[in-house]
Structures are given as structure tokens and as C-alpha cells.
């Protein structure tokens, strides 16, 4: 349990320090960004096909691929995980990122209905 928590903290720290996609200015954008990029990142880590139909898909994928390359080169322990373990880990990571950037965020502008 502690090990998993530590691993999620490492991945969270990487996202917070190296990425910008999780910090769009409104809650609905953050939700879409987190959902799509982390979903595609999970698929990439599990060697599963990734949908690339629309320009938006390609944009999420570019961020997701960059993220997974960073994860793989910085956290060698990822290579030893099974697909199920990766999915579980990434699911927990998404929950954590959603909390820090949306549901637990103290940013009062997130709910402003206009840009």
C-alpha cells in the first residue's frame, strides 16, 4: 500500500513539474484534459491501440505520449508492472490529479462560466 502511494506521488510530482495540460483555466477543461490525456497515457503504457481520429485526439495523444516517455525513463519500476497493475495505478493517479486540480482546488476561477 505504502509502495503504491509512493509511486503515485512520484508520478504526480512529474506531472506537476513537467506538464501544463492539467492546469487549464476552467473546471470543465481540466476534467476533459485529465480524462483524455491520462486515458491515452494508460493505453500507451499498456500497449493498447489509441484513438487518433480527430485533431483533438491527436493533441491529447501528443501530450500523453510525451508523458509516458517521461514516466518510462524516470521510473524504471514501471517496466515490472503488469497491464492490470498499470491500469489500477493510472486510475488512482487520475483520481489524485482530479482532486488536486479540480475537486480539491482552491482556485476560485475554475467555475467561472466564461473564459
Amino acid at each position, binding site marked *: 500500500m505504502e509502495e503504491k502511494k509512493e509511486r503515485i506521488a512520484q508520478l504526480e510530482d512529474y506531472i506537476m513539474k513537467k506538464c501544463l495540460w492539467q492546469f487549464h483555466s476552467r473546471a470543465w477543461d481540466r476534467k476533459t484534459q485529465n480524462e483524455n490525456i491520462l486515458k491515452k497515457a494508460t493505453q500507451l503504457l499498456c500497449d493498447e491501440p489509441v484513438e487518433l481520429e480527430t485533431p483533438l485526439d491527436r*493533441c491529447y495523444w501528443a501530450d500523453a505520449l510525451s508523458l509516458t516517455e517521461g514516466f518510462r525513463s524516470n521510473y524504471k519500476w514501471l517496466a515490472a508492472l503488469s497491464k492490470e497493475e498499470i491500469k489500477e495505478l493510472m486510475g488512482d493517479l487520475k483520481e489524485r490529479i482530479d482532486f*488536486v486540480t479540480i475537486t*480539491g482546488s*482552491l*482556485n476560485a*476561477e475554475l467555475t467561472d462560466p466564461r473564459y
Partner: protein
Amino acid sequence: MPYHEFECSKCIPERKQHAVIKGPGEDLTHALPLGHLNTIPGSISERGCAYCGAKHVIGTPMKDVIHLSHGPTGCTYDTWQTKRYISDNDNFQLKYTFASDVKEKHIVFGAEKVLKQNIIEAFKAFPDIKRMTIYQTCATALIGDDVDAIAEEVMEEMPEVDIFVCNSPGFAGPSQSGGHHKINIAWIKKKVGTVEPKITSDYVINYVGEYNIQGDQEVMLDYFKRMGVQVLSTFTGNGSYDELRGMHRAHLNVLECARSAEYICNELKVKYGIPRLDIEGFGFEPLSSSLRKIGLFFGIEERAQAIIDEETARWKPELDWYKERLKGKKVCLWPGGSKLWHWAHVIHEEMGVEVVSVYTKFGHQGDMEKGIARCEEGALAVDDPNELEGLEAMMTLKPDVIFTGKRPGEVAKKIRVPYLNAHAYHNGPYKGYEGWVRFARDIYNAIYSPIHQLAHLDISKDEIPAGAGFQTAKMLSDLNLSEEVVSSSTLRQYTGKYDSVSSLRTKTYPEFKKKERSE
């Protein structure tokens, strides 16, 4: 993450919620400074006004435009002597500044007539320029001048010209950030979609939130051109008015300064379905990652990788020379908005400096989220600081250098803390691989300047070491370095030219043929 109360601001208790210290094991959900609020009365802010944010930050970097302020000449103060958003058309937008010269009598009798006269006079004085932006100011907004109506009248009389009116008087927001917002929204509402651009590549972007400070945009354009990417428009540094009217045809919006320009990217996404990709032109790793992401989006990542490999091999040994000498130096990262987060982590990682404080003059809470997330534990984060708070922070944190604007920078000098101009740069450009080395060189020169060492001495009481002989920056910086580092054959100081930008303007690029498409 405890809120931090400055001793000097105890008499303004509201200020306490504007500063936090990043504590161990804490995250953004524990505390976040308030932001983008009206400055509290009694606090002498370093902010600019909403007119300044609209005109002097975003509007005026457009290069082929007469930028006219409808107000007193004093409102046009910021031009070539304070702003450094250069352009490749001989800096027209910096060299010439225009105002309708509103005086007291116009406040009484109205200033629309004088505005119209001035618009026509300006177009006649510069017959090659057919585009104009007009900025409302406090005085003319308060008397209710209808600038849009005057602009329409002129466009009817002079059909060859086009005019954009920006209604963002100084009071239209808590800081310059209010003006960023207003001009973003006004531009997409009034101008985007009014020109159909010529598409010359399969890979077309808008480069947004980039202001060509000392040539930043031109450095980045060099990379994009080497990748065969067409930059349809730059919002707005070195950007062209008519190119910016054609923003709706891009395949991708590549966004640098989200603080000043995310609004237009968000609107372009909603209205035209153009994706927004946040990128970073500062720092080797963030820049490489950004170029690669653009390459991935278009399926030309090998072109990006070739640039990354070439530039890294050329410039990394020089960056590392400075890193060895900057390790552990304490920095207060006190810019206006986006550099708070663009730089917070990468200067620590790639230059070895310790960011002891971050602040933002006009950032929103979203900027603080990014900045606090990226800086290390123990850093003091402050929103909209006043001068006394800045002084108190410097006295307490004892930074080796601060990165800030020229106004607080001059204050820092008075207490013998060197500063680098984070807005207009000292010897930029700072974007790009070479630019990042130029930044490292400026930091090095600021910290190790022998003159700065002398500034620490107080001739009224300190003993002056008259017999100590001369010192150089290198003598000071290499004092405690290992022999291996000092005599390294791979590390070297900056070897670029004084002017790293002008040659890009005449550079030729490989032609990437556009794919044939069947209709």
C-alpha cells in the same frame, strides 16, 4: 501550507491571504494565495492597468499597425525605452507611438472630433500603413466617446484601411490582466475570420502568447520553419494584423503565455475546433518536449528530433559551464505572470539555482497553482506584492539575484541585490537553446560581477580592500570549483554572437512540398 504574514503588512490584514510558504508534504489543496483581485487600498502595488495590459502587452507588438491611444500623450509612455518587443520591419511599432492628445478642454467638450482628425492625420503621415488599433483610455471612456463609431466613419471614408478598437480603459480590471482578457475577446469577436489566409503547408499553427521579446518569436519561428510548419499568425509579437485575422484556419494553436492569451485559444477551440497545445520555449528539456509534441501532432516528429539533437549538441556544454557555477545560488523569481511557472522548475533543474520565492504581479490563482506546483519546498509565494513586502522578503531570504521587472528591480539594487529583467531581458532572446544559455550567462554576470561585490561595501564604515588587486567574474565563480570542472575540455562559456537574431531574417529553409489533396 501556511499563509505568510509580512511584518510590514500587519496593518493590512487582508494581505495575509495573498502569500503562502510551500511546506513539506503539502499540496495545492492546503492553501493557495488569492489572485486577480483589486489591490487592497494602502498597498502600493507594482501592477499596471488594464489599458496597459491591452495595448502595451498584447496590441502593440503587432508590427504593421498604427497603434493609437485615445487619451493624453502620457498614456503612450511605454514604447522604445521600456518595451523590447522588436519586429522584422525595422521596429515600426516601437519607433512610432500615437495618441489623440486629449486635453482638459476635450473632457468638457468631447474628444471624438480630435480623434477622427488624428486617425486621418496618422494614416496620411504613414501612407504605407493601412491598419490601425485604437485604445480607449480612462478619461475618454469616462466621457463616453464612441470610438467604434468614429472608426466606422473613417473606414467608410477610407475603404483601404482597417481599424480595430479595443475598449479597455485603465480602470477595466484589477491589473493589466484585465486588459489581456479584453483584447483577446475583442480580437476574436471583431477580427478573426475576416481574412482568408493562404495555406502553404500541411502543418499550420497559430503561435499564441508570444511577444518577440528581444527576438524570442524569431528564434522559435526558425525551429518551426525548419520543421516545415507554417506559422499562420503570431499572437502578437512580430505578428501581422491581417495574418491575425486569419487565425481560424490553423490546425493547431500552440500556446506559450497562457496568462495573457489562453482566452483566445479557448475561444478558437470552442468556435473553430482548433486544439490548444501548451508549450514552453524556455529551457532545453521543456523546449525539446514542446517541439516533439508539435512534431507528433503533425506526424513529423523526426524533423523535430533532428533540431533537438543538433541544438542540444551545440549548446548544452555551454549551459553546463554556467550550471556548474550557479549551483545553489538563491533566486527570487518575481516576474509578472507566466514566467513564474515557465521558469520555476527548469532553472532549478538545468541551472542548479534554488528558487526561494516566486511572486506574480498580475497572475491569477491558476498561475500560482502552476508556480507553486513547480517550485521546491520552502519557497515563499506572493500575489501582487507591495514594495515593502518585496524588501522584507529580500532582507529575510537573502537571494543572490532576483528576476523581475525594471521597477522592483531598481528597488532591489538599492539593497545591493542584483536583478535581471525578467520581462524585457538583459541580453536576450532567452527562448530557444542558445537563448537559454544567454539567460544563464546573464545570471552568471549578475551574480559574479566584480562591481556588484564592491557594491556590498559601505564606504562610510567598511574597510576598503585597496590592496586586494582586481577581480574578475571568473576568479570569483571558480574559487571553490573542482579542478576537473575548471579545466574541463567539454564545458565552455557562451560562444554565440552579440546579435543572435538578425541573421535569422535572411536565412533560407528547406522546402517541404505540400501534399496533393483531391477535392
